[in-house]
């Protein structure tokens, strides 16, 4: 058999030879050397894939472009999320936000008077009473539902933080010791859900719980700050 062609030797860098080629490679030092050289090229390339170079971009140059593209809202422009909302202001999204706001308010209200935030066997739910059946949002796609879910989570966290800052009745109910206990419990919950996120990083339910727990933790931290003397302020816990 004559020598293997250059293209064939190049291919054999990562392909298996035929029986005839194998027999030839076993007896021809020249072709075996060439094949080894091609294999070395492929190995060099594979090793290069793990190499990390210095970034071509810098945040200082990228940021203005992102602001101009309205991906970053620097105050002078509208964020893409807000922009999308305005362009696609669908009634169901507003309805979802409204229902959530009412639910959140109802929960906070119940909590502030010492009741359970969730009405267990209470048929006089504020949300149920104030939300006509035809205002229940209906989603037409997974995308729509996910957008609503994201917005609802953000809204819930903001509302919780606002209530923690404004609702003075909460302060009367909770002592610093009780708030500290809740904070410690929330820390344990955050840690546990964080571990769950490691197992299911893209699970929307786990992500939702994680975000809610973080929001509650932040709100509780603010609450603790309010009931403590002005000289004692906690910035982290």
């Amino acid at each position, binding site marked *: 058999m004559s020598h293997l062609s250059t293209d064939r030797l190049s291919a054999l860098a990562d392909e298996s030879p035929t029986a005839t080629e194998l027999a030839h490679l076993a007896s021809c030092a020249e072709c075996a050397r060439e094949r080894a*050289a091609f294999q070395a090229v492929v190995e*060099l390339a594979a090793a290069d894939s793990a190499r990390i170079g210095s970034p071509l971009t810098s*945040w200082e140059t*990228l940021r203005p472009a992102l602001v101009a593209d309205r*991906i970053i809202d620097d105050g002078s422009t509208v964020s893409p*999320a807000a922009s999308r909302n305005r362009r696609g202001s669908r009634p169901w999204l507003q309805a979802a936000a409204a229902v959530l706001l009412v639910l959140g308010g109802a929960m906070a209200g119940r909590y502030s008077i010492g009741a359970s935030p969730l009405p267990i066997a209470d048929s006089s739910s504020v949300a149920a009473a104030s939300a006509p059946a035809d205002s229940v949002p209906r989603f037409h796609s997974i995308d729509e539902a996910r957008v609503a879910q994201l917005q609802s989570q953000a809204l819930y966290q903001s509302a919780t933080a606002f209530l923690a800052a404004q609702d003075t009745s909460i302060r009367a109910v909770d002592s610093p010791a009780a708030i500290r206990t809740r904070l410690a419990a929330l820390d344990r919950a955050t840690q546990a859900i964080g571990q769950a996120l490691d197992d299911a990083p893209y699970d929307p339910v786990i992500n939702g719980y*994680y975000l809610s727990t973080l929001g509650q933790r932040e709100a509780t931290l603010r609450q603790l700050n309010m009931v403590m003397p002005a000289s004692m302020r906690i910035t982290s816990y």
Partner: protein
Amino acid sequence: MEHEPLLIRRAIAGDEGALRALWARHAPHIDMVVRRLVGGDADLAADIAQEVWIQIFRALPSYRGDSQFSTWAHRIAVNRTLNALRKTKRLANLETEVTEDSASVDPDPDRTFVAQSIEAAAAQLSPGARTVFVMHDVEGYTHEEIAEQLGITPGGSKSQLFKARGKLRKLLAHLVDVRDVELPRKEPAHVAPVY
């Protein structure tokens, strides 16, 4: 390190800190892909990398989490870079380039150039050959995937790859040449061709 799904959610909401954190975490890999595909033109690579990042952040709301963020962003980087190279005519009509490469008779133009690294050697390849080589041997794409991305046939991709390896083998001879190969039996007496 903050959980990436949470970081992505914050970035989608327009949180600059989260956007910056994602960029800082993935820029070394993403920018490296762009650099490899573009070759030696550092200015062009920087311009394309900037476009790639804008595109990644624009597309972020469509990220479903079906794959790792790094994989998803990597795909965008490759697509965007190839589009940019097409616009600059560096990757125009790749199929023609394959044919022309196959037909060209060039005894050995690389003998005077010795590359010190695979990156330096790959920069000497034609844009089409470099793209196929980088996508297959460095980034791990299959010939079918490359063919789909570049609008060529899988056979054209293979042909381009083998020629790219052939040129790299010469450019990197000082690094890849093997002095002795163990053979099970004595070397036959046929005449070796000139490679």
